[in-house]
């Protein structure tokens, strides 16, 4: 398919602006750019058709089953989008006087109240724009907490080896070193190993619960108390919150701060990678360190104030505000009944699908699972030469988006499947049949799977070539 630049035609343009109604001002020549940016010259038809074509080349949540593990690709309700596009939200300048932005402040206040209740936290900042940004923020709170106690020796963050890659990467960004703790045979944190890993240099532990293999850390109270006794704090990576809403809360498990992924758990769309929102909640004692201005006051006259010992700012203004509007809309729709129903059904979907798939495939850990589960295709790979990648690519030919592949790293030939609660029983049945069909093909005709996908506009791509000779932009032919 041609690029926008290849569709460009000299002097073609859209009509957008009226003529300027004041005298033209000129910049001194020395300040002006020598060469104008080579942007494409297009008509509105060209642009509209181009992006319609790009849309057709994209698999979205509405194109079918999208079980991307750890990403919670649930349905994105339309009402959320509509509420976030109200001019009363979109046309508000972030630096308007607070008395003219009371609706925005009330939105943040309500979202904070509800999300704190769901997580068992006392306070929350909406400044972080994504999960990884939330992790960074949470670790800043932990760093500041130790610094405020004049304890500068705590420079180590403990993470399980099953953790998301962002956890250790975030630790490095706050100048900490990482201590990896191996998981036990059962896929959970090995308490003995954890005890050995913590000490006077421990700043904190980062943990996802349910963890990345889809299991609830059954010893969670012991885990958090081991870290607390060593003087560290415990950080909750909220990627998997969809499994436990209304059932249990990170705050009750002993976590000191959490980040949420509103674009996962709270049904806001992923946007092809973003914008998301990664609010960070914390217990009272961390609240003075929160970044960015916080909503203060109550009904009618809200104001914005910087917490007194704030770490500073991690982003301009108050985060991805419109995403927060969508999440609030979703929470109001769900209410206390719906919030639990979501998690119950997310966990039910995963267990049901795991049960169906277990007829052919091997779960990495025996169930029951929480909202997602991991298959290991180690045996299939060894016996038939069929990898997790082959099965994933073959799913595409059956109209299913592949699960997360090769993660977590501790499971060989991993496929991580998260069906979410917004898929009905008959879809799960159908998908299970597809998986089984692929398994049969793997046994009878494995060659076919190596070719997959064959129904897409392009086949498997040359990733090695892309990295070896990076071509990261189109070179515009200069007129």
């Amino acid at each position, binding site marked *: *398919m041609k690029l926008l630049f290849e569709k460009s035609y000299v002097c073609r343009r859209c009509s957008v602006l009226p003529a300027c109604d*004041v005298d033209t*001002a000129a910049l001194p020549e020395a300040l002006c750019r020598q060469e*104008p*940016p080579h*942007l494409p*010259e297009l008509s*509105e038809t060209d642009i509209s058709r181009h*992006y319609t074509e790009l*849309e057709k*080349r994209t698999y*979205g*949540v509405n194109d079918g089953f999208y079980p991307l593990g750890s990403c919670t*690709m649930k349905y994105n309700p339309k009402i959320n989008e509509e*509420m976030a596009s109200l*001019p009363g939200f979109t*046309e*508000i300048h*972030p630096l308007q006087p607070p008395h003219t932005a009371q*609706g925005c402040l009330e939105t943040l206040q309500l979202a904070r109240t509800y999300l704190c*209740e769901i997580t068992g936290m006392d306070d929350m900042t909406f400044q972080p724009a994504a999960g*990884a940004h939330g992790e960074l923020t949470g670790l*800043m709170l932990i760093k500041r907490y130790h610094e405020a106690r004049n304890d500068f020796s705590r420079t180590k963050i403990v993470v399980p080896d099953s953790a998301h890659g*962002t956890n250790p*990467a975030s630790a*490095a960004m706050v100048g900490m070193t990482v201590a990896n703790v191996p998981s036990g045979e059962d896929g959970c944190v090995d308490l003995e190993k954890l005890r050995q890993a913590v000490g006077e240099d421990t700043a904190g532990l980062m943990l996802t619960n349910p963890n990345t293999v889809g299991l609830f850390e059954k010893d969670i109270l012991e885990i958090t108390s081991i870290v607390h006794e060593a003087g560290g704090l415990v950080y909750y990576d909220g990627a998997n919150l969809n499994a436990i809403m*209304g*059932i249990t809360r990170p705050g009750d498990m002993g976590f000191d701060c959490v980040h949420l992924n509103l674009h996962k758990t709270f049904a806001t*769309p992923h*946007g*092809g990678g*973003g*914008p998301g929102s990664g609010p960070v909640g914390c217990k009272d004692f961390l609240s003075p360190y929160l970044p960015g201005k916080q909503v203060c006051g109550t009904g009618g006259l809200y104001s914005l104030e910087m917490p007194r010992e704030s770490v*500073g700012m991690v*982003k301009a*203004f108050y985060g991805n505000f*419109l*995403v927060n*509007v969508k999440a*609030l809309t979703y929470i*109001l*729709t769900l209410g*206390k009944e719906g*919030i639990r129903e979501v998690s119950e059904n997310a966990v*039910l979907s995963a*267990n*049901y699908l795991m049960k169906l798939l277990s007829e052919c495939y091997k779960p990495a850990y025996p169930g*029951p699972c*929480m909202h997602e589960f991991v298959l290991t295709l180690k045996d299939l790979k060894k016996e038939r030469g069929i990898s997790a990648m082959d099965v994933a690519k073959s799913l595409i030919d059956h109209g299913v988006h592949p699960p997360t592949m090769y993660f977590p790293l501790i499971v060989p030939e991993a496929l991580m499947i998260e069906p979410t609660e917004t898929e*009905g*029983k008959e879809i799960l049945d159908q998908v299970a049949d597809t998986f089984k069909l692929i398994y049969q093909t793997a046994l009878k005709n494995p060659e076919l799977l190596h070719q997959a996908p064959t129904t897409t506009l*392009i086949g*498997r*791509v*040359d990733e090695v070539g*892309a*990295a070896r000779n*990076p071509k*990261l*932009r189109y070179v515009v032919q200069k007129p």
Partner: protein
Amino acid sequence: MGSYVPSTKAQQQEMLAAIGCAGFEDLFKQIPEQVRLRDEVNLPSGKSELEVRRVLEEIAAKNVVFKTIFRGAGAYRHYIPAIVKSVAAKEALVTAYTPYQAEVSQGILQSIFEYQTMICELTGMDVSNASIYDGASAAAEAVAMCRDRKRAKAYVSAAAPPQVVETIRTYCWAAGTEIEFVPEQNGLTDLAALKDLLDDSTACVYIQQPNYYGLIEDCEMAAELAHQAGAKLIVGVNPIAMGLLKSPGECGADIAVGEGQPLGMPLSFGGPYLGFMAATQAMMRKLPGRIVGETTDHNGNRAFVLTLQAREQHIRREKASSNVCSNQALCALTAAAYLSALGPDGLYEVAQQCLSKAAYFAGVLETAGLHQRHQGQHFHEFVTDCPVEADQLLKALEDNGILGGLPVGDNGILWCATEMNTKDEMDRVAAIAGEVCS
């Protein structure tokens, strides 16, 4: 009231039975009793769609939507062509996630590749990433790109916007990077002072173009000074100004970043916005976040794919160039659609109108008794002193449905004019100012 669960109660029972559970309680047996909630969470009951709509509309109505805005300071109101909103609402592009599976994600990947190309064109740099959170975090990530063992100090212009400075400061504190400020003189970064400050422990210099006060900085000189000391120059630019101003690439910058919000994103009380980042070829592998590259599939067809992933957290973990995982893809798409709708002439026209209107506006305010504080050349923002309390004037404007400029230190006001502001509006502000100040 809804939970968007399609399975009926009967189907749920069937599924529970199939996995050997009597009820939902059984599903959560692995969660220790001590941490399980005994009661419902303390939230209101769910609401119907119509009720939710009423609640949200009522909340939105508590905000004041100003028809006329003369405030910028990091968030700018520009005209957003209808085609841009239409493109940014395309369902598959809205709901997909990071394009891990290239075969079913060519649409997103190609749109990012096109975006990267446009950012390179705007900034005059060699390579761009797929975007990050916003302009302030892009600036902070750029500083992190420059730091190494020997050079761990960053110099930030005191004339950069406070939200950018604060974000850089926060990231630097966390990472243990030393940060110092380059003082300002007459509203501009004091380059003579910078020259004396730079030494061989300096990693980089950060400068904003146009700066917080709307003034145009001498980025070429800044690049020369930084490079003489072996340091890198990061320039934070306003993307609309790039229609006219010398690009960071032309000035010799090593990294260009900026807030992409003016490229088709509404004000939205501060977000979602778009952080763009571009660099020289030499710094390519230090860029954080996603990058899309062109390649081929096994049949030789053109294909796009996430590339240079050896920099990233899911491969390198604690040794990654950053923890950034996702990008602001939908905002990048919006920016690309905006730049396509404008084209080269259109971007020039928007920039030219911003420049002309701000020049006219400064003139009429001057006549009304609000004198410009700085002498330098400005783009679409400028600071005036205010002969009365700034808040008094701003209140008078607010009473007339106008969001005036932002109060800044020493009773100044930072004004902004864009193509959205008509001559009539500007004359009206001047008339009100004349009355209030006389």
